[in-house]
């Protein structure tokens, strides 16, 4: 077992603690001080951050595009964003859902395999390029934003389910969930745009054409179109509900599906 693997497993435990504490905070508000909630997340970010820096130092910065490491870096960005977004007004459940989603993805990654051994990584000379790094990093941040936005959307959808709560409370929850998701998605736009254009610049400098039918690039452009469509739904109040939620969830699925594809560039040849 690689030495950093232990750090990833410890980070997983910290994330599990954060999930429990966040849901407890949702069910019994104000029982747990905010600083405790934040501390567990900061512990996760620290452990995971050290492990990622270790991995990147051993196998070179481009290795972060490896599907396994990319997923871990995306989760790091997700929890960092969650820490930032929790300072803004929004439904408590959104934060708990984001942390839970992050925990599931983190656990799944640990179950399917340990971190890649750096001796086994053969990184193409095309991947040793700042534009490629920029493309991968900004795509990961955009994916992280999508995971956070999904928290708000899931709150919105959950509030639509028939429950015994009073209508006003459900309405407030829906409105807050929607506002949280929309506000968060706005953050994704510059990152995703940057990623698409960094990819175009990388492709052009490497192969002399900015247009490529590589799956990783096309999926990111489709995700960008979905994001643009989602942001346009804000223009009409009729579209702000179910349509916006549906588009966000489709975007989330596509964002998660694009993670393993980013690593295509690591072994890219003409």
């Amino acid at each position, binding site marked *: 077992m690689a030495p950093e693997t232990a750090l990833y497993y410890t980070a997983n435990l910290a994330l599990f603690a954060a999930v429990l504490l966040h849901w407890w905070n949702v069910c019994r508000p104000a029982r747990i001080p905010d600083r405790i909630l934040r501390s567990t997340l900061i512990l996760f970010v620290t452990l995971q951050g050290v492990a990622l820096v270790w991995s990147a130092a051993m196998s070179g910065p481009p290795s972060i595009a490896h599907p396994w490491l990319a997923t871990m870096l995306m989760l790091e960005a997700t929890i960092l964003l969650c820490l930032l977004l929790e300072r803004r007004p929004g439904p408590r459940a959104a934060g708990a859902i984001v942390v839970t989603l992050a925990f599931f993805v983190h656990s799944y990654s640990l179950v399917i395999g340990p971190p890649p051994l750096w001796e086994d990584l053969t990184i*193409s*000379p095309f991947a040793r390029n700042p534009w490629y790094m920029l493309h991968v990093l900004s795509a990961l941040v955009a994916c992280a934003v999508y995971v956070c936005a999904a928290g708000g959307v899931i709150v919105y959808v959950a509030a639509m389910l028939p429950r015994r709560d009073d209508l006003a409370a459900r309405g407030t929850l829906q409105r807050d969930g929607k506002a949280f998701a929309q506000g968060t998605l706005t953050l994704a736009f510059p990152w995703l745009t940057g990623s698409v254009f960094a990819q175009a610049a990388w492709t052009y400098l490497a*192969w*002399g054409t900015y*247009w490529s039918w590589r799956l990783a690039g*096309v*999926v990111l452009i*489709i995700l960008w179109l979905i994001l643009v469509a989602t942001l346009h739904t804000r223009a009409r109040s009729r579209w702000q509900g179910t349509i916006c939620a549906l588009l966000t969830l489709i975007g989330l699925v596509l964002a998660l599906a694009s993670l393993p594809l980013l690593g295509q560039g690591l072994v890219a*040849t003409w």
Partner: protein
Amino acid sequence: MRIDILDLSWRTFGSHRFTLAILVVLMLVLACGAILPQRPDEVAADSPQYAHWRADLQIRYLQWADPLTDWGFFSIRDSYWLEIPLALLIVNLVVCAIDRFENTRRRHRPTSQDLAAAFSGGSHAPGFLVVEKMEPTLARLRGLLEARRYRVHVRETEGVSYVTALRFPSADWGALLGHGGLILIIASVLLGPRLAWQEPGIALGPGQEHRIQHAPSLSVRLDHFKADLYPNGKAQSYEANVTILEDGSEVTRGPVSPGAPLWYGGMSVHQLSHGPLVDISAADAEGNPMSLQALVSSGTVLEEVSLLLSEEESEGYLAVPQRNLVLRVVFQPEPAPELQGSRSLVVQAYREGTTEPVFSDTLRDSALLEIEGDSYAIEWGQYAVLTAAGDPTVLPMMAGAAALLAGVVASGVLRPQFIWARVRGNESLVEVRLQHPAEENQGVRTHELDSLVAEIKEEFRGS
């Protein structure tokens, strides 16, 4: 009933519904492009590679291969499937940009009629009453808004005072800048296939030269090349020095590596890949050089022959006319277990007209072989595969990308805020109503306006 076609078209092309429809169509077209194999740009319609690619399509898609080819599904970038939605998107963006320009201008410099209309009977602008005179109320409202970093203007019309407050107003033009950038990008993508050219697969050994077909006065010479490989034979890094010549005289030279091309006059030279280069020379027992001839269509008799091999074309042949011999050189990219995991080169010699080799050896490095008393120097090096490209649409596209990003960041980070207020009343009672003139994002912004009104109301009460 008369229908104003122009107005209807304008509203249709500028509607959000139209934008969404085009976005959905583009998503589907791109998904098709990602799923179906696309014709490589560099493959000419009459080349053997194209025939090979077509045959592969026939095997995979059977009876569907021809109709899909005819409908352009295997070359979507050059087809109407992509061009029409992109052209419509440009129209949509232009119409939206003009509408947005008009709205932005109005928000920045509203006329008295605009202000009066915003607070007309049907408006549900939130507000409150203050038991005070007009002037002190106006002064306090102005102070409160200025404390929130709004730039405030007050104007009076028919006994009613209108307050217009702006915060980060210039960021309001960011969205327009973004629209302009996007138009530039889409126009570049549309024009790219018509204006850009590419000449890939220029295989050159050190010292060799290649004339560029798209710019016949230019040629490329490889001065030096080195490829560092992983044990599995994949490239780890490349180091190449290239000279560009115009009508035979050197115009520029420099290093070329993946992601760092050499530029000259709108043309760029990129490092793509590498392959094994085998230089062979022969001498008889007395040391006199012998003539060799590569068995290719353009093969001439020389004292030294270079074979450019690859994983696809791993065999090369050359004749030794003086000895009636044919040398077969086979590159083995897969590591042979008996050679401790390194790639190898098999050299065999055949007497003309026979199938049994008179000599056979496997090499891991350059070597001097002795075949029937003659010595053959086998120098095993590498050749570089370069591509030359010219694309005048790159700069507009990158400028558009920069404009789009700058616009998005400006309007997202420094979000422009506009507040209009109507203050009217008599000597003892004043009514203050506030309005947000933004047309978009009503859901979020109305919520923000409500909290701002509540804050201002609280401060009025508190003082």
